[in-house]
């Protein structure tokens, strides 16, 4: 990537349908801004997020992936986010273990009432990814380029 070209990270936000997608809608309704490079994919519940989807996103060029779901205890399906929480913890830990920047992945609980939190989270996450620069390591892991 040429240094002079402005880096526009690609960020995929998986949002559960009941809380976080509604929270994202609310931040829109309240006209709270966050960067356009955040694109939301609606899933029924945070527990629907297969780790493979995250890897796929990185494979296809995402620079950051964030999962937003209902707050623990408030899952529309009662327990989904608890499973998601464990799964994501272990996945993030493993990516960290492989030397992938741990800031590239994140989980945030956003309720349907937290439009402001959604926007703030996305601004913050986007800034973090911007600081990290493009995601290279996952791609570089195998091929020695030096």
């Amino acid at each position, binding site marked *: 990537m040429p240094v002079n070209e402005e880096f526009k990270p690609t960020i995929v936000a998986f949002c559960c349908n009941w809380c976080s997608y509604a929270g*994202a*809608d609310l931040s*829109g309704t309240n006209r709270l801004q966050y960067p*356009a490079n955040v694109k939301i994919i609606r899933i*029924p519940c945070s*527990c*629907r997020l*297969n780790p493979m989807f995250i890897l796929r996103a990185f494979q296809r060029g*995402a620079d950051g992936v964030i999962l937003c779901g209902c707050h623990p205890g408030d899952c529309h399906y009662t327990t989904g986010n608890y499973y998601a929480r464990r799964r994501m913890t272990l996945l993030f830990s493993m990516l960290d273990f492989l030397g992938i920047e741990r800031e590239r992945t994140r989980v945030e609980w956003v309720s349907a009432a937290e439009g402001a939190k959604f926007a703030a989270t996305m601004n913050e996450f986007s800034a973090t990814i911007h600081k990290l620069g493009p995601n290279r390591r996952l791609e570089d892991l195998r091929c020695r380029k030096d």
Partner: protein
Amino acid sequence: MQRVGVFVCWCGSNIAATVDVEKVAEVLAKEPGVVFSTNYQYMCSQAGQEMIQESIRKYNLTGVVICSCSPRMHENTFRKTCEKAGLNPYMVEIANIREQCSWIHKDKDTATEKAIILGRAAIAKVHLNAPLTAGTSPVKKRALVIGGGIAGIQTALDIADAGFDVDIVEKEPTIGGKMTQIDKTFPTLDCAACILTPKMVDAAQNERIHIYSYSEVSSVRGFVGNFKVTIKKKARFVDETKCTGCGLCTEKCPQKKVPNLFNLGLDNRRAIYIPFAQAVPKVATIDADYCTMLKSGKCGVCSKVCTAGAIDYQQKDAFIEQEYGAIVVATGFNPIKLDKYDEFAYSQSPDVVTSLEFERLMNAAGPTGGTLLRPSDGQHPHTIVFVQCVGSRCDDSKGKPYCSKICCMYTAKHAMLCREKYPDTDVYVFYIDVRTPGKNFDEFYRRAVEEYGVHYVKGMVGKVVPENGKLKVQASDLIGNQQLHIDADMVVLAAAIEPDKSARPLATMLTASMDTNDFFTEAHPKLRPVESPTAGIFLSGACQGPKDIPETVAQASAAAAKVIGLLNKDHLICNPCTATPDEMMCNGCSSCEKVCPYGAITYIDKEFRGPNRTTLIRRVAQVNPAVCQGCGACTVACPSGAMDLKGFSNKQIMAEVDAICR
């Protein structure tokens, strides 16, 4: 390959002002499989919908992508539109280019570019959509109402009236709620008990209504039409079926020093009690915290005097399982605690009271028999100061951010009643704003000022100093630009109201969402005000937000109407986006079963053909689509990827990922 039609909505200027809708339609037209792409001012309008339908017929569309507002707004609208044109409703995908694009971006190029990507993702997904047909599930024709205040009672009566069985679960020993403690109601000044107690009796006598008093909901499973609820009947140490409500025990009990919570601790009752004369059910309850028999095993007076033999010291909490088609939440409100606002000296002087305490002091059944007397010395007060907005309308760090809505009116009522009954009293009301929207409300307030001579002062009280039997009130009069110093006999605080503490754990059980103040959120603030976003959960009364009695009753009946509409159906259309296992790949490992919150997954041993005419018996998962709610937990728990979710399949989500990251 699907034949996809793309419809880009302007939403007037809501989208079109920041997204170049024409360009979006143009670019998306070039996506693979797109045979038609257009834009229009209001896709959700009659004309817009007709345009979609025409295009489906004309271009033989097999998939439709609508770039518009959030799917939470109009996904159903557009699904129905397409269904009428012969397209399976699940062949429709929405790209959310309003809430998640035009409304959050200012730069038109950026927003347009993003809208195109969101459109692409939807197109990529719709290519992998499959027509889905919803199944049905039966509806249990019984409703549960949680909370037996005026809201719960009204809802239950209306539902029962329509011919359905209703259970009311009330945590107190009697139904009636806060309204039982209120003396008179605004703006008519009729007696609260006179209009409430007949309704309580109606509820008790209605053969379709069953009241679980002194009970709580302890667990909720299931889903709309098929809730399975466990109700905990707390031990009241009195056999309800035997107790006649004669009240002898409540007179003979030697433990006399129990704060009477019905009168907010302004007087005492016995350890065995009936909250008030018109209680429903009129059954005694033993307060285990104070009963000497329960605490030390010595006494037993109530048991001796009870001719019905109703006292049962061995009684234990009982658990009842019941099935319901719908659940109504009517958990109501409470005034907040005032220890954070001691500039008003609430904890320092008994003559500083809350408005609800003032109701009891005015009430004929209250601690003073209806004569207004100061709690400190039993003297008749001559100067009374009312303070509005105590803990309401605050910065988050200082109290509740919302207006409690009912205080302006009940304070006008209190002030008016004081002046009417005791013309020798001086009454001051310190207000920030007087808020009286409602039928005959402002007229009522004006009467308090004009006819009854209540001193309304625009300003606030800063400090109350109890001294020599007086309450020295220091306040501002903003219109008169002066600081007032009033020697008052009583100060009445209009405490903010907040949702009952039982609401939060209940919301978790019901998976019904709440706002940051613990009020239940409605499915739509304007169009679906009595439904929770969780299907089958309805909201009645102040659990949804501060409300006065007429509004509560109106909402209670509205919730009942919604419940009746639901219970009238024999079957509910299920969500067709359910999990579905690929039997060929299923390992039968039980991982999916373990994470399913609905018990929708079972296993069967199934015979499969192997190579060379052999057969193989394998254990494979089965999903009951009527029970599956489509969360997708199983799909990720499945190690082999045999489990997939219709409507949100692995391939569909990955196609969206690919389109976004492209």
